[in-house]
């Protein structure tokens, strides 16, 4: 059933100052999965996403999105960076941040108009943030800021979504709201790839998982490969989780 490969990574090696952060990664991400990338701190999870999106230059290897380079397929991809990667004191409103999601389809110089604004308002509605559209972004709670970031990705109306720790520092309500939206995206046939930290929730939230620690440890359906063996290999300590079915 999952025949199409959404993202194909071959022999990817990325280094900071000649020290490899990712080493010879081969990875196929099938279309329509909701996939978690798990691994310890410094395992290269964010680096993997940034390399796929062309933000970092790999020293070797290739990445293709539906068989073509990222540059050609940019419009198919949406990205949610880590919440901490931006300055939330920036003078702008929630609506304006969501509008930024439309900039990619606009291209250089062209300004967003009514059509883009309408799309942004719809995305805000989907994440339950419409009442906050005119609020300055520093006046939002951590969970609300994360929802704004999610809305900004939704407005791109992409086929593949990359999210870097969307559950970091959010309250329980927001976490449930976010995972429901991610599950809806999967239902609509989208591919969703999430850097995730909370191992306990992997079986509940995701259907696909990739274990990463500089090298790829394992990738596949959660029910087949999310086990103590792979966790131990990834985290280097004897790991025991009880998987609830």
């Amino acid at each position, binding site marked *: 059933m999952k025949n199409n490969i959404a993202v194909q990574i071959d022999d990817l090696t990325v280094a900071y*100052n000649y020290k490899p952060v990712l080493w010879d990664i081969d990875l196929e991400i099938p279309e329509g999965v909701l996939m978690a990338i798990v691994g310890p701190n410094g395992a290269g999870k964010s680096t993997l996403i*940034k390399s796929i*999106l*062309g*933000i970092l230059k790999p020293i070797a290897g290739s990445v293709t999105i539906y068989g073509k380079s990222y*540059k050609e397929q*940019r419009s198919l*991809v949406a*990205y949610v*960076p880590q919440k901490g*990667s*931006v*300055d939330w004191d*920036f*003078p*702008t*409103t929630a609506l304006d*941040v969501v509008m*930024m999601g439309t*900039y*990619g389809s*606009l*291209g*250089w*110089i*062209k*300004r*967003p108009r009514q059509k883009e604004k309408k799309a942004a308002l719809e995305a805000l509605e989907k994440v339950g943030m419409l*009442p906050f559209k005119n609020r*300055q972004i*520093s*006046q939002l*709670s951590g*969970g*609300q800021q994360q929802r704004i970031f999610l809305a*900004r990705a939704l407005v791109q109306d992409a086929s593949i979504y990359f999210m870097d720790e969307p559950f970091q520092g959010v*309250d329980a*309500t927001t976490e449930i709201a976010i995972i429901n939206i991610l599950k809806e995206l999967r239902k609509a046939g989208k591919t969703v790839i999430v850097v995730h930290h909370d191992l306990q929730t992997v079986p509940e939230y995701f259907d696909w998982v990739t274990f990463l620690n500089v090298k790829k440890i394992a990738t596949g359906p959660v029910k087949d490969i999310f086990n103590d063996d792979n966790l131990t290999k990834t985290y280097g300590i004897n790991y025991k989780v009880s998987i609830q079915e």
Partner: protein
Amino acid sequence: MSSAQIEIQIIASLVAIACAIPGTFLVLRKMAMISDAISHSILPGIVIGFFITQDLNSPLLILLAAITGVITVVLVEYIQKTGLVKEDTAIGLVFPVLFSIGVIMIAKNANDIHLDIDAVLLGELAFAPFDRLLISGIDVGPKSLWIIGSILIITIALLFAFFKELKLSTFDKGLAASLGFSPVVIHYGLMTVSSITTVGAFDAVGAILVVALMIAPAAAAYLLTTNLKKMLILSIVFGVFSAISGYWFAHWLDASIAGSITTMLGLLFLMVYLFAPSKGIIAVIYREKQQRIEVSLLTFLLHLKNHDDQRERHVNHLNEHINWQKVRSKTVLELAMKNNMILINNNIVSLTPKGDKFTTQAIDYIITNEDAQIEGMKEDFFLFRG
């Protein structure tokens, strides 16, 4: 007002506007110090250009100086990328070297050229009207007016064309890169504009004071608004205000125009820093005081809610039970009365239904930390305004 006076004020205002625009983005990108570096390290570019053209207002000189400015940024980033020193150290290493090369070049050739260190550091705005631009013999105004005017028009055109791109890459570099707006291109574009503006402004206000015109108006505007467009407009208004009031201040004192403009910028920032409605020091101190009282009020209301025993709620016992001083107890008691949250009957304090509801909501919020419940309460209480 003589025409020379008017010309000086126009030049100073145009310089202020041309500086305020890139300055706003430098402040938001936390790169204020790079403007200091650029303003000093363009000196060798200016000196070499002057050797070649013998004209301080030649386009070649502006070009050479702008290139030196961009080289400064490249060098700073290169040194920083090695990971051996931090960014501020790299800035502190690069610009004095380039600046001192310029100083030596001026000193070695002091007899041949009309370029002195004073003019470089502080500018010669008062003399600007004397250097006229002649087109086929007709006087069309001071040369520096034409130069800064042209630079300003280009800056404004670029701002309008790339406002979206500048905003996006300043706020979220990662998203900008993933959407195909190269943050590197935008970064160097901004650095080039900053360098060119610095050269254009250099003649009027000198190397040291260019920095003030770039940073102070933007820093003041940042404290007053949460909207990028308004921040740009406010920066421009502050810049022009300081330029004109600074000119008259200098006129009154018979002192340096550049020095006076910078003094006005400093005063203006100080006023905003003290009196800005929400981010100003006075507003912050007031808000903190309010919050302290509100926390006390909540503690007090919670005490009443938790104790049915009349002894615990007797006016005379409240002080010892909550362990507060009399003054504080009185403030809190009055605040609660004023908001109809408590009733006092025979010296026994009890919660009104309103007080009871408020306490429950507040406690719910503190325990669950959920945002939905807080929205309705924000208007009444500073405490929850985050």
